[in-house]
């Protein structure tokens, strides 16, 4: 009896693959199957049937007759049947065919002269010794294809007849069918030495490929299921085996009764068909065996093979319980560490909670509501480990027996711990711990500020969601993975989350120019969660900075710069000078947030970030913020000025081209004349765009676009210049556009035209609209950029994967050295400077601040 209570450690040194001999099959078997019947009248498995109790147990309560163990303990045992006539194993048709073709019909020697065969054998052994088993297999294959085309035996000089394989498994010799018996007889006569040349290891015989006995797999791999009606439904394999046993029996009976050869042949063929489809039901020349309903049976090889086979579906493709996946959408009103979970998902995913004296009433209420009423419960687990589904019928019973020690699997509720993840999971912030917030509708909701660490947007992205099931898992997730613990990137030591878009714009406008009435200010602050207004100066008219300062901690001191370069100063929690823009609030830059994190901790920083974001959004929605075409308007003089700059540049370009044609252009060091010309032209044109952009920017009204560009929330000066003044030169691979036709970019231009317009210079702006050729040039560079990203993403992804896999078990030791798993040193000092980047600001230690704090 095998017991599994003590683990046994053994190292596998090698594995051999080969064929079972009929003797081995019989010896391995615990039962001989003789009848196609499965159960007797009482529904008890028949002895000698396919569900024989010696083959293992699948019924709870019964014991295996072989090993004496119960369901789930007994691993199952093989049985066998004796076939009335031998049949060929479908997966060995090829090697059998090779053997038949390459051996003599009369003396059964390999069709190869003695000394040649010997030489090949030596060669084979050498190959396998030097290059391994795989090389030997390749060599065998090469040899087999080489020596099958002989028509005379070199040993007995007999003439050989041609052997033909009619797919899937019939052999013909000069149009006479060779029965499996004849084939087997031939294979039996092939000597052990010759057989080695076909790749057989010693100890294995080719005639074993023609089966005389068939092993019956244990019932444990083909369990029957009991339908709700109480009817038994057998596994596909059991069905197939039933067919085999039935035909086999009929064949036996007919042979014993001396039936005519035709009938026996027919039955034999049928047996061959059933055995073949038992192994592989997808043989191309055979009609697949079907259920009565017409559904194709899933037999042995289809269980293993292909995408939904055992290997790719179950072994390589593990699925996780208590997880969900759906589209994501933004919700700036939930907090940073929350995740909005659709009600439908919350009612499917559950959290197990153990009933104790203290929470009994609480959990009872969940059970009472049941699976259909939120927040309810779907299952209870009894102290003995049995799981009970809560339904309308079982609810009352469960409620009466519910006792301390039971576990209730209740629906997900607000505040539960969950993991949230978006692929590709490239860094540790790709999977973070969030608090559940159950919401209506069908998408996961997340605060737009955490898009950055996940690299998510809302153009259809989907994300995965997991619910930890044990206290340990929840504790681990909360301590190590909670969003606020992940704020500072270990890559560059700055906050990966920050205010975005309206969050920045709003605060920028607030701190820059807004003067508010006291009620307005109170309203704003109330919206973003402030309830204590004692720090708001007692005045009727309030400065935007004063309003913003209420959010800051009262003892906070900070000095830095904003994007315009002026000083940002916060003294005792009051913003005295400077503007709140991307440099202070933004992600991957926000130094102010970084300092808050350092002094007040992760939770405070996350909360403050939420408040600041909400304040910005609230300011914008009250003030109003919109963009229109008129924002792109320029005064007539400015337009003329830009036209003049462009015309000048074109003239300059033409002058350069003329000088080039006249041979007066002097080449730059290390450049050809043509290259020099191109460089000079590019220089002139780029200067033009910058100059006209500057001119335009000076005249553009204080529009929404410029505000956004200035505070860094979206867009930049170049974008505005392209909309108002000039789009500029389009470049492919750092050069002006030169593709297209012979000597010109488009048929619209003359051959050899080197002018700005003919080589991708767009002198219009997006507001005035582009000329057709300009539009085309724009499309060219646009397409190029698209192609570039499409091609680069998978490449860099693979590169990153190789790096992270190579370095995944390196760690920093207590002495500051970086070592691999075996303790070998990789770096003597981590990063050469011992610095933990996540404790720095942008990779640098702020020594000044540390000194200040020490004092």
């Amino acid at each position, binding site marked *: 009896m095998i017991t599994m209570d003590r683990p046994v450690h053994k190292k596998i040194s090698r594995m051999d693959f080969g064929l079972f001999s009929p003797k081995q099959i019989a010896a391995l078997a615990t039962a001989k199957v003789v009848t196609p019947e499965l159960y007797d009248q009482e529904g008890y498995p028949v002895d000698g049937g396919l569900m024989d109790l010696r083959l293992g147990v699948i019924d709870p309560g019964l014991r295996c007759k072989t090993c004496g163990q119960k369901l789930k303990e007994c691993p199952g045992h093989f049985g066998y049947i004796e076939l009335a006539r031998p049949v060929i194993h479908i997966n060995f048709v090829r090697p059998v065919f090779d053997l038949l073709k390459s051996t003599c019909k009369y003396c059964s020697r390999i069709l190869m002269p003695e000394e040649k065969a010997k030489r090949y054998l030596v060669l084979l052994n050498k190959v396998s010794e030097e290059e391994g088993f795989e090389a030997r297999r390749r060599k065998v294959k090469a040899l087999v294809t080489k020596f099958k085309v002989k028509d005379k035996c070199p040993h007995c000089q007999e003439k050989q007849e041609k052997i033909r394989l009619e797919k899937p498994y019939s052999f013909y010799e000069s149009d006479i069918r060779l029965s499996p018996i004849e084939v087997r007889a031939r294979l039996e006569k092939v000597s052990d030495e010759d057989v080695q040349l076909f790749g057989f290891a010693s100890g294995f015989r080719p005639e074993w490929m023609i089966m005389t006995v068939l092993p019956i797999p244990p019932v444990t791999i083909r369990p029957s299921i009991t339908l709700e009606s109480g009817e038994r439904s057998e596994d596909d394999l059991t069905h197939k085996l039933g067919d085999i046993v039935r035909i086999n029996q009929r064949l036996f009976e007919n042979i014993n009764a001396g039936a005519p050869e035709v009938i026996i042949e027919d039955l034999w063929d049928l047996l061959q068909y059933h055995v073949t489809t038992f192994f592989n039901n997808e043989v191309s020349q055979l009609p697949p065996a079907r259920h009565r309903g017409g559904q194709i049976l899933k037999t042995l090889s289809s269980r293993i093979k292909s995408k939904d086979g055992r290997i790719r579906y179950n072994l390589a493709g593990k699925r996780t319980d208590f997880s969900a996946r759906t589209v994501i959408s933004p919700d700036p009103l939930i907090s940073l560490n929350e995740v909005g979970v659709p009600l439908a998902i919350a009612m499917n995913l559950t959290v197990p909670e153990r009933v104790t004296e203290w929470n009994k009433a609480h959990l009872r209420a969940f059970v009472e509501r049941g699976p259909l009423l939120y927040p309810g419960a779907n299952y209870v687990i009894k102290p003995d480990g049995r799981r009970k589904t809560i339904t309308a019928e079982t609810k009352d019973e469960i409620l009466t027996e519910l006792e301390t020690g039971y576990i209730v699997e209740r629906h997900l509720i607000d505040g539960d711990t969950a993991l949230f993840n978006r692929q590709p999971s490239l860094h540790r912030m790709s999977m973070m711990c969030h608090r559940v917030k159950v919401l209506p509708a069908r998408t996961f909701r997340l605060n737009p500020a955490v898009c950055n660490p996940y690299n998510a947007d809302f153009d259809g992205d989907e994300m995965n969601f997991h619910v930890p099931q044990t206290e340990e898992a929840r504790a681990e997730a909360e301590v190590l993975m909670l969003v606020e613990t992940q704020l500072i990137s270990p890559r560059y030591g700055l906050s990966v989350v920050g205010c975005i878009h309206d969050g920045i714009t709003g605060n920028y406008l607030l701190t820059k120019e807004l003067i508010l009435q006291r009620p307005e200010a109170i309203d704003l602050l109330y919206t973003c969660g402030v309830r204590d207004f004692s720090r708001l100066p007692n005045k009727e008219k309030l400065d935007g900075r004063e309003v913003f300062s209420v959010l800051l901690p009262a003892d906070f001191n900070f000095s830095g710069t904003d994007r315009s370069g002026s000083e940002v100063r916060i003294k005792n929690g009051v913003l005295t000078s400077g503007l709140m823009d991307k440099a202070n609030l933004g992600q991957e830059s926000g130094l102010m947030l970084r300092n808050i994190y350092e002094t007040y901790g992760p939770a405070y920083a996350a909360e403050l970030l939420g408040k600041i974001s909400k304040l910005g959004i609230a300011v914008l929605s009250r003030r109003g913020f919109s963009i229109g075409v008129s924002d792109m308007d320029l005064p007539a003089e400015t337009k003329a000025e830009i036209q003049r700059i462009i015309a000048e540049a074109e003239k300059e370009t033409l002058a350069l081209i003329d000088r080039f044609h006249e041979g007066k252009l002097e080449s730059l060091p290390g450049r050809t004349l043509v290259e020099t010309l191109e460089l000079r032209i590019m220089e002139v044109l780029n200067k033009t765009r910058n100059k006209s952009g500057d001119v335009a920017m000076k005249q553009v009204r204080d529009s929404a676009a410029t505000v956004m560009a200035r505070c860094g929330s979206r867009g930049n000066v170049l974008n505005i210049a392209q909309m108002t003044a000039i789009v500029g030169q389009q470049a492919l691979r750092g050069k002006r556009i030169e593709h297209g036709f012979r000597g010109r970019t488009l048929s619209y231009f003359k051959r050899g035209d080197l002018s700005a317009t003919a080589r991708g210079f767009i002198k219009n702006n997006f507001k005035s609209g582009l000329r057709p050729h300009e539009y085309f040039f724009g499309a060219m560079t646009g397409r190029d950029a698209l192609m570039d990203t499409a091609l680069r993403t998978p490449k860099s992804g693979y590169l990153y994967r190789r790096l992270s896999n190579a370095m995944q078990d390196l760690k920093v030791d207590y*002495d500051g050295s970086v*070592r691999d798993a075996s303790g070998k*040193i*990789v770096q*003597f000092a981590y990063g*050469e*400077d011992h*610095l933990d980047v996540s404790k720095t600001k942008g990779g640098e230690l702020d020594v000044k601040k540390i000194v200040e704090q020490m004092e």
Partner: protein
Amino acid sequence: MSFTITKHLLVPKHSKVSDAEKQKLFAAYAITEKELPKILKDDPAIAALEAEPGTVIKIERNSPTAGVAFYYRVVANG
């Protein structure tokens, strides 16, 4: 054309480590030669040093983060 590669801008300074210093290094990191990174005996950077296998080579690198960073390799047969 021939030049001394050890004089090249990009080749950091390689020098032999004395036995006493070697023992100090091993003690500091609690290691033996086995844990040290290796350098080939005929590596061009130490060819002039004629170091025997088992010698520890000290490499002084200019580091963008730390100014000068030290690295140690043990000479190994190829």
